[in-house]
């Protein structure tokens, strides 16, 4: 078969050239599309009398928010509402991640239980909550369960200190008395000691092969040291116990029902997915590993801690992180029940009041995008470190 030298191939059939032309056309099309969109946006904004830019962030917001972690009032700026919303998003996400992890691991391990009843119960839990939309679950907890609770006057109470009613759950609030600073100082000191202990123990094990009971020792220091200082300094802490005054409770800390509903729904929904991840992670450890560990007569708990868990975690952790990211993104459903998260406060109320759709949606998306990208970057580092070292 005669071969054609490259310089005799017609121009339009050369792959490199075709790729170049295709990309040039793509770029031109993209630039044209974006240009058209910007042009349209400018015209539309002008005809609606909206000024572009971030100037609105310094204007007075003038609406109140039911739950704020930082000082906020109607006189605060729109910029402040952004941070109030962001902190509320982070609060419910953090609470949800902790609860979902605990429930998820418990259910995932229960699914592998030799006890038929327990395993079936765990499977049922997973199949029910995984297959119902999160939004339905949030609305169910909020409107069907929490809104059906009694009014503050008929609160369900525990020890006359914890109260549950339609306005949320009210618990005693700790109030620091003078001298409590010593306990805080002791806690900080304990953390430093435990971190250096862990560091020292690892180096000692590398050098001598002898392990220290780091977990037990660490826990003892972390709890014991502040506790001793607390008692010695005369227990300088009092409790602000809530009491019924008029139609509502005064004193104590109240967790608003929106937060409770969102927290419950997010934790249970995500826990169902985490349970599946944990189960598949544990099942992915080859049986031979456990048998080999038993053959060199390692005790059961060491087998679990040093053989099964490290290998299972390599499978579990990346998927777990993506579930955490999902949970953070899903917390934006807060807006359906009026929990004041970033989307509800900023992309909802602030957007409606100012009409700055482009800036506000872009800022909101940027927040979630930043969180996602940072977590994925950390995940890549973790993956690189725990990758199987192939010979």
């Amino acid at each position, binding site marked *: 078969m005669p071969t054609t030298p490259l310089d005799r191939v017609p121009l339009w059939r050369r792959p490199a050239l075709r790729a170049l032309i295709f990309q040039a056309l793509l770029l031109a099309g993209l630039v044209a599309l974006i240009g058209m969109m910007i042009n349209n946006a400018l015209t539309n904004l002008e005809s609606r009398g909206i000024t572009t830019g971030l100037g609105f962030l310094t204007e007075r917001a003038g609406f109140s928010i039911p739950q704020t972690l930082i000082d906020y009032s109607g006189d605060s700026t729109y910029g402040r509402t952004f941070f109030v919303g962001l902190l509320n998003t982070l609060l419910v996400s953090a609470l949800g991640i902790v609860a979902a992890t605990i429930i998820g691991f418990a259910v995932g391990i229960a699914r592998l239980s030799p006890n038929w009843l327990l395993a079936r119960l765990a499977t049922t839990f997973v199949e029910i909550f995984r297959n119902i939309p999160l939004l339905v679950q949030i609305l169910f907890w909020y409107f069907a369960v929490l809104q059906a609770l009694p009014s503050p006057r008929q609160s369900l109470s525990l020890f006359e200190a914890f109260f549950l009613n339609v306005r949320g759950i009210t618990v005693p609030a700790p109030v620091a008395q003078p001298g409590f600073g010593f306990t805080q100082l002791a806690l900080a000191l304990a953390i430093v000691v435990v971190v250096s202990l862990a560091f020292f123990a690892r180096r000692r094990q590398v050098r001598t092969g002898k392990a220290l009971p780091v977990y037990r020792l660490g826990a003892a220091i972390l709890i014991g040291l502040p506790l001793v200082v607390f008692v010695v300094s005369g227990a300088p802490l009092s409790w602000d116990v809530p009491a019924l005054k008029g139609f509502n409770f005064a004193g104590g800390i109240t967790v608003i029902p929106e937060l409770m509903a969102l927290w419950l729904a997010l934790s249970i929904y995500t826990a169902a997915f985490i349970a599946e991840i944990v189960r598949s992670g544990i099942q992915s450890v080859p049986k031979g590993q456990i048998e080999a560990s038993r053959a060199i007569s390692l005790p059961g708990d060491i087998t679990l801690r040093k053989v099964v868990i490290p290998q299972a975690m390599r499978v579990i952790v990346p998927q777990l992180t993506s579930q955490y990211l999902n949970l953070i993104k899903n917390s934006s459903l807060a807006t359906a029940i009026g929990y004041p998260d970033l989307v509800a406060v900023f992309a909802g109320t602030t957007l409606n009041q100012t009409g700055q759709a*482009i800036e506000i949606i872009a800022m909101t998306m940027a927040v979630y995008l930043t969180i996602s990208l940072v977590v994925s970057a950390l995940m890549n580092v973790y993956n690189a470190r725990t990758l199987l070292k192939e010979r």
Partner: protein
Amino acid sequence: MSERIDPPANPPVNPPSEGHLVPRAVATRTEMLDPRPAPDMRHGVVGWLRTRLFNGPVNSVVSLVVLAVLVWGLTPLVQWALIDADWIGTTRDACSGEGACWVFISARFETIVYGFYPDAARFRVDITLALLAALIAWLVIPRLPAKPWVGAFALVGFPIIAYVLLLGGHFGLAYVPTREWGGLMLTLTVATVGIVGSLPLGVILALGRRSKMPLVKSLSVVFIEFWRGVPLITVLFMASVMLPLFVPDEVEFDKLLRALIGIMFFWSAYMAEVVRGGLQAIPKGQEEAAKALGLGYWRRMGLIVLPQALKLVIPGIVNTFIALFKDTSLVLIIGLFDLLAIIRSGLTDTNWLGFATEGYVFAALMFWVFCFSMSRYSQVLERKLHRGH
């Protein structure tokens, strides 16, 4: 625990002891009988209970606790949902108030299915739903032939037919604007359009991400990572408040269409990642062999690589479908009346206040039935397609 020795199935006849003349047939035994086999505790109900529930003290306690929790939790639930519930009637008075009032659902069942779709045109929804059901059944039942053609029709022909039937305005069908759509019919519309739209877009994005052209590759990566990094809610907000700003003022942009575009883009990014997983699992030699045969890019992909890759990731694709289906409920936040929103709006009806539990339980049940059957199907497929390579 005492060691239990299983006797052999057929105990050998005792060998004759030495020094005795044994007659050929005896009327009386001269030796002891062999012991009967111990009752086998691994079989039967009792054995099942012993091995699965009560092997050891810890497990026994766990079993009893779980049993107690089940009885304690399920009894009131069954009592409320089935035994004390009211099923028949058309008004609130039919409900005694002790158990669930399912009359709330049955009285507005038509609205839950059709939304505000005009009565006279509801047969069009029926035809579309029947066609959809038939197509799905054809694709799911393994024995039926011509699956690729039916699949292609479901992806290309069916959406056109459904569009003409539901929207109307052609062939003498009355025009029904999308603001009158609602209920289950809208949920299924959003889900179907999302699925049909996001799969091809996802395949193209996945191919783009593996492209050797730097611009195509980076555009695909940015597109995928952007949509995967933001919540669907912000995408829907964007579609409902930001998108109208980007088109000329005189163009009327349907609200449902805007939401559909947002949903399609959002899920195509997830689909792209699933498909990419499949593409990475196909050995490079496959594509190189196709290249050696002189096939061009699209033929290499369309005939050699994609059929193998897609087959590998069918379970992942179905899982994405499930997630998409569940998330169609989010359109209620931008004011579309899907299944959940219709039930919610029923809860604010002054004639029917106080049935939030019934409403949400029913909505949950509807979504659950669809999602659970899809997930079961995906598991069956996974087992069927797993050839143990």
